[in-house]
């Protein structure tokens, strides 16, 4: 059968997902789509003998497979669909794993994983003991460098290239980085160094014009932030450079092939002449620019990659590939967020299966609270680093378009930018995930805390985060914030407390402050009108349950675990005290002293690493002489290892932070091992 281009359409098109550019009726099935060619490919070596047409068919089947698997497990869909052809081309041309292939952020690596021996494990994606949603060295030898935070691959690739040079090896090193990740400073640090060292390596700039996440505001697609996107667009229509090249080509043709050197030098001059057009941005940094290239045309990709691979000394080369996020799945192509991260969905309709919840997420409550504060105080502004949806600030943006700043993936800049705003008397709220704030830590210390500027940090995703795994886990923020001399550090135990703490932070105007809250939904407590919280007294905790002998002093969401633990303990006849510290800095000294005086044991509980809340309490108690008597202190913290991705419940078990663990700890300290064992047996049953 001939299609409109007069080409023979393969008969397989009558079923399965049609992932090509023809406007046929695409059919999507909930059953596994047939993938005859993909079934023969377990590792890249099985692809090496395929023809171009077969590689195109392989790409189509790979695309269907990705859609099918993500529909069953949830995960990152749009980005993976955008790089299907690129993945196939890279594995076809290069000899992985000897050739190193690095994926920035790693969420687009689903096709890569399918092609490198993990197709049968795709149903376990992002689940406990299953495949990681990002690239992980310990998972496969084809995963050259672990990622999760963005913009690290050029640096790592340069390191691998230089290491290869020092060893005298000959393999290729290829880093794939997106245009969003390109907004981060580290990418430029790396390119600058790469240009200087001049080591052979390839950087593939995967440009799909989606610079922020999720790739839309509430009301539609977000225009890319930053000047870089404009520059990248100009690259696609860079007239002067192209024309000059044409002239140069013509001249060399006329002169003849023997005058390569002069032509090469002329080219250098020509490049130097043209500034203001985008490609010279990369070339000024010392990378040879090739592009733009159609990222969905396998023929083009393979040609270019082969040529670059086959050229002996290239130095660093940047190939600018244009792709479309969500390509090949019409629902994704049309969605304003391009189906960046999805729950399980029905492939035939694109509808996601969202579990209905009684309460909103903490992220939503934060956004509402901030809006409520900003209604009354015009000085409040919000800053985030390319995470409008993830931090809930898209709502703030809609309500106050001029008071919400998306700086791109640039946490360091976000923090210092907020510091600058604070200097001018504004009240900046920096909403950055706990683990991403690690990237801006020096700025927090040096630019904010040292100068005592009143910047407020709202750290979402504190503690364990479930399917995203250790790269996104906010384990360390209590430790690294509470050790700063001027910082006020607090954590809400439920959503009402969160609203109050937003108000408290808004009121603290003479020093920096921060508060952390977990991923997940609220527990269901009464909320104030219009989400407007009331400021609480700084350094004041509260007692939740009055009891005896043992005091559970919880911080943040751990207070809920303590409450649950106290019910378990109560079943065995002991009523323990549960207190919510609320503040790690300044600590509620009076509360701690009173607990120390009236109990035998104090157990501090937090969902954070060592060196955080518990350590501060212990320090205080030691200095205050409270530990010199009969009092015992035990900390419950995240263990000294990285907790792998999985369901939140499984992660808590792995971390030893479940209510059952806490209850068992209580009995263990009191010497009642039988009760402790009973509790743990019930949990494990």
């Amino acid at each position, binding site marked *: 059968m001939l299609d409109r281009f007069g080409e023979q359409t393969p008969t397989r098109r009558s079923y399965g997902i049609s992932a090509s550019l023809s406007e046929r009726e695409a059919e999507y099935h909930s059953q596994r789509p047939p993938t005859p060619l993909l079934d023969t490919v377990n590792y890249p070596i099985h692809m090496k003998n395929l023809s171009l047409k077969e590689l195109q068919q392989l790409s189509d089947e790979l695309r269907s497979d990705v859609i099918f698997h993500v529909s069953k497990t949830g995960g990152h869909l749009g980005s993976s669909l955008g790089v299907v052809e690129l993945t196939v081309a890279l594995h076809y041309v290069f000899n992985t794993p000897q050739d190193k292939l690095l994926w920035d952020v790693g969420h687009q690596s689903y096709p890569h994983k399918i092609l490198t021996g993990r197709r049968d494990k795709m149903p376990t994606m992002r689940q406990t003991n299953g495949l990681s949603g990002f690239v992980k060295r310990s998972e496969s030898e084809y995963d050259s460098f672990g990622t999760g935070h963005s913009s690290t691959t050029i640096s790592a690739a340069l390191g691998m290239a230089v290491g290869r040079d020092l060893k005298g090896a000959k393999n290729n090193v290829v880093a794939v980085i997106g245009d969003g990740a390109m907004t981060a400073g580290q990418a430029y640090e790396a390119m600058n160094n790469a240009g200087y060292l001049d080591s052979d390596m390839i950087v593939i700039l995967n440009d799909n014009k989606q610079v922020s996440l999720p790739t839309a505001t509430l009301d539609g697609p977000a225009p890319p932030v930053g000047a870089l996107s404009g520059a990248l667009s100009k690259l696609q229509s860079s*007239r002067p450079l192209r024309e000059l090249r044409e002239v140069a080509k013509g*001249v060399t043709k006329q002169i003849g092939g023997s005058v390569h050197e002069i032509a090469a030098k002329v080219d250098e001059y020509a490049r*130097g002449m043209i500034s203001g057009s985008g490609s010279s941005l990369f070339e000024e940094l010392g990378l040879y620019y090739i592009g733009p290239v159609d990222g969905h045309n396998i023929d083009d990709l393979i040609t*270019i990659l082969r040529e670059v691979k086959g*050229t*002996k*000394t290239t130095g660093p080369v940047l190939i600018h590939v244009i792709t479309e996020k969500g390509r090949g799945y019409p629902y994704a192509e049309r969605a304003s967020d391009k189906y960046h991260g999805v729950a399980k969905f029905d492939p035939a309709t694109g509808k996601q299966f969202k579990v209905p919840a009684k309460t909103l997420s903490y992220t939503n409550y934060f956004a509402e609270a901030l809006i409520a504060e900003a209604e009354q105080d015009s000085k409040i502004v919000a800053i985030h680093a390319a995470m409008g949806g993830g931090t809930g600030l898209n709502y703030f943006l809609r309500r106050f378009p001029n008071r919400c700043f998306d700086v791109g993936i640039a946490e360091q800049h976000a923090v210092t930018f907020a510091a600058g705003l604070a200097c001018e008397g504004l009240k900046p709220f920096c909403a950055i995930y706990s683990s991403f704030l690690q990237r801006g830590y020096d700025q927090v210390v040096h630019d904010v805390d040292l100068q005592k500027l009143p910047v407020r940090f709202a750290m979402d995703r504190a503690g364990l985060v479930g399917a995203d795994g250790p790269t996104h886990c906010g384990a360390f923020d209590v430790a690294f914030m509470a050790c700063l001399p001027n910082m006020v550090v607090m954590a809400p135990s439920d959503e009402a407390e969160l609203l109050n703490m937003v108000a408290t932070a808004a009121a603290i105007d003479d020093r920096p402050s921060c508060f952390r809250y977990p991923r997940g939904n609220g527990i269901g407590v009464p909320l104030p009108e219009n989400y407007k919280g009331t400021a609480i007294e700084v350094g004041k905790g509260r007692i939740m349950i009055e009891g005896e002998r043992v005091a559970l002093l919880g911080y943040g969401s751990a207070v809920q675990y303590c409450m649950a633990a106290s019910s378990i303990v109560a079943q065995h006849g002991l009523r323990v005290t549960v207190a919510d510290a609320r503040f790690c800095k300044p600590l509620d000294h009076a509360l701690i002293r009173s607990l120390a005086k009236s109990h035998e044991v104090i157990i501090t509980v937090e969902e954070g690493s060592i060196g955080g809340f518990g350590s501060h309490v212990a320090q205080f108690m030691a200095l205050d002489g409270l530990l010199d008597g009969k009092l015992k202190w035990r900390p419950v913290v995240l263990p000294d290892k990285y907790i792998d991705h999985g369901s939140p419940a499984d992660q808590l078990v792995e971390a030893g932070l479940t209510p059952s663990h806490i209850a068992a700890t209580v009995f263990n300290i009191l010497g009642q091992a039988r009760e402790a064992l009973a509790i743990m047996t019930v949990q494990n049953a």
Partner: protein
Amino acid sequence: MPHLAASPASAAFAVAVAGGGRAGFRPPPRATTRARAAAASGAASAYTAMPAQPQPTFYDLLGISAEGSSFEDVRAAYRRMARKYHPDVSPPDAAKEHTRRFIQVQEAYETLSDPSRRTTYDRALARGVCRLAFSPAARRHDASAFYHQEQEEKSGWRTSWEGQISELKKRSTVKDAEENLSWGAQMRRRRAEQS
């Protein structure tokens, strides 16, 4: 190369070959029709081709510059031109010509005021493919028209990266010459000596 002096683009070229970065050097003029037509026709005749009837671009029609003109500039220019060429205000003997112009100006505005269509148009211009031949496709907004435009752009991309690849190869032959003192070049020379 005496005959290189003929065209402006190659004049710039000659300067570069001769003297390197002299202060007085002026970058190649912003795409004269001559250079563009030459580029479109495949470069070998860059300094000998006499172009066909030089066609104005949408930017010329509106009298604005191609780079850096904002939506406001486009709109202001459109209003000026529309007032000038509207059939109702033009003298009767020029009515036909003015009507034709007016329609062109109208179309120019429609294309240039829409950011995505403007980008597509810019790319097509860069490849020297069209000026006003945009019209039939531009009228239709359905997916297949857009698809065809996209395909045309992308075939233009191919020409450019093929050129870049051949330059890369040329460069690589001289890359590790003795003058290149970069770390990478030193390591490559050392490896070449050892093997």
